[in-house]
């Protein structure tokens, strides 16, 4: 088991190097520091001095990958590649364009992101699975047929519509919760409720349909027939046999997204002005702060790979037949 985990982590290293090289290529080779400086200082009438100053201020004034002017190892370390890309491996993200420390900002913004994402995931899972089991119980009846039609219709509505509609109805018209914002401690609850509910509604269509397929697949198996044959009621079959076996595909599908919860949701956070990592990213995109975008790309891929490894481990945990 341990050797498997070590092997998986070793396998993750070339992937992270690949991600790093790719982002480096995108941000510094396709798009040179000169371009970046010009973008930030305005396209027209930029003096070379101003550009040099901007580059020096933000640490982009070194050669890209090889510094012939320096001595020894400094030939490689006094370069943009070393300072901006290699340091990502040590989770040293450097400074944003406004001079703030990106690493500190990320740590600080993780909390609000999780405060939205974790309840959202749990409530979503509970509701989706309950709804899917209800529909699977009434399979091949009108309830099933209309349920699927409803799910497809709900899937076809843009997530933006749910957010805008939710804010309009619950905050603007009914005035139940504040429209957007965030607070610390227990006061945060009134800001969290609406995003979680909206996320639940916008995900219930596809979620319910997905879990329904999983349940129906399990219901078609032989062990379900034997359970019915020995006289168990349909409800008992559903809960003690089908649900337990269906948990294997459900759990493995969920585990892979757990680490990515840290990243937050771009759209939800920015609509509800929650100071999490999602809105951090969106602000960085809008203000074209490449340093933050690069850090988030790297963080995202690390978390994704962690998710993959956790998925493999959880397989062995829920299904003893799987040996690593």
């Amino acid at each position: 088991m341990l050797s498997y985990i070590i092997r998986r982590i070793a396998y993750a290293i070339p992937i992270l190097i690949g991600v790093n090289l790719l982002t480096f290529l995108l941000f510094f080779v396709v798009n040179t520091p000169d371009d970046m400086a010009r973008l930030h200082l305005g396209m027209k009438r930029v003096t070379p001095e101003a550009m040099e100053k901007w580059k020096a201020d933000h640490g982009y004034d070194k050669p890209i990958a090889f510094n012939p002017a320096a001595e020894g190892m400094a030939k490689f370390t006094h370069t943009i590649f070393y300072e901006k890309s290699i340091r990502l491996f040590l989770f040293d993200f450097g400074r944003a364009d406004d001079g703030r420390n990106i690493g500190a900002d990320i740590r600080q913004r993780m909390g609000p992101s999780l405060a939205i994402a974790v309840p959202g995931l749990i409530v979503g899972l509970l509701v989706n699975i309950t709804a899917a089991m209800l529909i699977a119980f009434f399979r091949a009846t009108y309830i099933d047929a209309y349920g699927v039609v409803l799910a497809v219709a709900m899937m076809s509505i843009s997530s933006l519509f749910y957010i805008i509609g939710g804010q309009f109805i619950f905050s603007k018209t009914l005035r139940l919760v504040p429209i957007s914002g965030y607070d610390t401690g227990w006061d945060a609850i009134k800001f969290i409720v609406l995003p979680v509910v909206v996320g639940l509604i916008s995900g219930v269509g596809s979620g319910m349909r997905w879990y329904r397929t999983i349940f129906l697949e399990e219901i078609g198996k032989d062990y379900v027939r034997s359970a019915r044959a020995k006289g168990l009621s349909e409800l008992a079959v559903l809960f003690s046999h089908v649900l337990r076996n269906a948990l294997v595909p459900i759990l493995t599908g969920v585990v892979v997204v757990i680490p990515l919860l840290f990243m937050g949701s771009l759209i939800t956070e920015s609509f509800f002005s929650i100071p999490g990592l999602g809105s951090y990213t969106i602000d960085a995109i809008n203000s074209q702060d490449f340093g933050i975008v690069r850090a988030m790309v790297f963080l995202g891929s690390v978390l994704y790979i962690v998710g993959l490894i956790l998925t493999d481990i959880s397989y062995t945990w829920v299904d003893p037949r799987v040996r690593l």
Partner: protein
Amino acid sequence: MGESKMAALSFQPVVLWTDALVYLLLAALLAFSFYAIKREHLRAPWRQVRRRPLVMSSLVVLLFYIAIGLTDSFHFRKPLPVTEANQEIQYSPEVLSLLDWLLEDLKSNTERSYSAPLAAYAFTKEMITVEDGTQRRDYPRLVYGGAHLQHPETERSADLLALVLRGGTTGLVLAGILTGAFILRLSRHHRKGFGEMAGLVMRGECETAWKGILITLTSILILSAVVIPLSTQYHLFGTDKVGQDVLYLTLKGIRTGLVIGTLTTLVMLPFAVSLGIAAGYFRGWIDDLIQYLYTTLSSIPGVLLIAAAVLILQVYMDKNAEAFSSVTERADVRLLFLCIILGVTGWIGLCRLLRGETLKLRELEYVQAATALGVSNGAILVRHILPNVMHIILISVVLDFSGLVLAEAVLAYVGVGVDPAMISWGNMINSARLELAREPVVWWSLSAAFILMFGLVLSANVFSDGVRDAFDPRLRGRS
């Protein structure tokens, strides 16, 4: 002189990048239909699709959207009026499409600012000079919306009702005639009586679900017959901030949505198919390399990769601004680039599926027989593997479509969507967000974009479900 006069009547056709790809896609679709028509294993699932009324009506709705999108994909420039004799003909810098030409009234009938749907008065008060010279603050009359009415307060509802009734009746009569003619032709074809055939169609006992198709067509005809007179005399969906008709904007948004949904797949298909099959078939280091490639790409969060690429494109475009002769061309290149980037992030799922399927297929007897007979790898891939993964490709193309249309709106909100100058549902929704904060609320352009988007995505979802049920061998036979 005579020659230049002739030329002055002509238009200069403009083929944008996405237009060319849309034509290519159309050609590919036709070629695939010809290919499929001759092959029983591809015709059998299609027969299953054809029998399901809901799937067929969603196909009709989709085709309706596609028809609008296609008329919006033929672009041209109008010649500018010739001012002096023997002057070279100059073409207007504005690139128009066939749809713009058809909807010329909608496009040019702009008001000054917001107006509610079907309104005769503007949405905000202005200073108006009355006949006797005094000024007062009131809602001014619209220039085009309900301009034919003398006293909108009293006449408007009656006028609207009359327009709706007249349009609805026209549509119903037209649909009735067309349905009758169609059933007549069908009965001739099957050598049955008209009444018998009509009974068969209505009970859904034909090979094709004609009932669903006819009902959908009737609804579309009635809807169009109501919408057309309403939109010529009023602004059916109101006007936006600069007074543009919202109906026109949403109709223009159809093309953008369709292009993103289809061209993305067209762009990524060659990569996904060739790499997926190669990885599964050759195994070894080729497999390792391709797996490494897609694991690396899929580990980068999709939105961030798209954002990074679009930011970089923006820098490039600002640097080479002179390379684009018009705003339309600039927006078009950005749209194409967006499709490519969405394709880069989207090909991984299909590639993985194809790899897995090819791994299974290559061990089957017929492939081993071909290898034993000395058939080359290339021939095996094209003749034995590719036809047997066709259903996976088809299913994933159709399933991806609706997700991409929805993604466009989200990307526009993040600020990395299509060019702000391009009309798209995402841009409409994005700009309408602030309108909801106004008092009273400006809800119409948001709702119009959402409604048309919902129609397209819903019909695409229903259709793709039908296609998947019919083409997926694991689901075939089950309902």
